[in-house]
């Protein structure tokens, strides 16, 4: 059994793309891996953020990477 850090993001965790989360989880089960959602993830700084403040959106994604590597 392999373990992977998992970042669902806003949409997949509690939004309209819940289906992607479900299929990712079930695929990982078949591949004998486990996806572990890391604690305290934040927004990935997606398109709406990039358009308003580019630097802040890069900050967002880097905070995520930082907390995932812990």
């Amino acid at each position, binding site marked *: 059994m392999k373990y992977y850090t998992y970042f669902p993001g806003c949409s997949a965790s509690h939004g309209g793309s819940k289906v992607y989360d479900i299929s990712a989880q079930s695929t990982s089960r078949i591949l004998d891996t486990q996806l572990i959602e890391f604690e305290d993830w934040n927004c990935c700084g997606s398109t*709406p953020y990039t*358009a*308003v403040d580019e630097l802040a959106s890069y*900050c*967002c994604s880097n*905070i995520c990477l930082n907390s995932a590597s812990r």
Partner: protein
Amino acid sequence: MNVNNKGKTSFVQEISKIPGGEGVKLCIQCGTCSASCPNASKMDFTPRQLIAMARAGMENEVLSSRAPWLCLSCYLCTVRCPRGIKPTDLMHSFECMAVRRNVSSGRTYTPKMYRSFTDFVYSLGNVPEMSFMIWYYLLTNPLRSLKMLPQAFSLLKRGRLSIKAKRMKPEAELQLKKILDKAEIIALRGR
């Protein structure tokens, strides 16, 4: 072509500095980007026109256009461009510039939607879609939300719209706020 060359860097030079905008001078105006764009029919200027205008130094017209705000970020233009220009990245940079220079973009609610999105990231760290949409309609025109009610109900019925929001730990939330504050200060200074 240099329209405003009085000590100020011209618009074209400014665009060339954007990652993905280096190729703007190489554009051959083939129109592949406009033909690929699924939203081109709703734009006042197509991506090809926008690049031509940017090269001609029509700064105000480009930034006040609503075309960049209608970009869906599908990246079809970026994939298909024969000259390796990244029109999607250019569009987002135009949006960024328009926000920074307070240029009002004609008849589109997208800037307000993006603004409500960033409000949520700042206060919660993530974006609960339902509250985000409610906040957006409150900021713009609450009456328009009535039109979306049937869709909201069908999404709720299938469990694709959750009401409760995920909260981060208070320390993590505070840390995020500090970093975003600092990013804003740096961005303001760089203006």
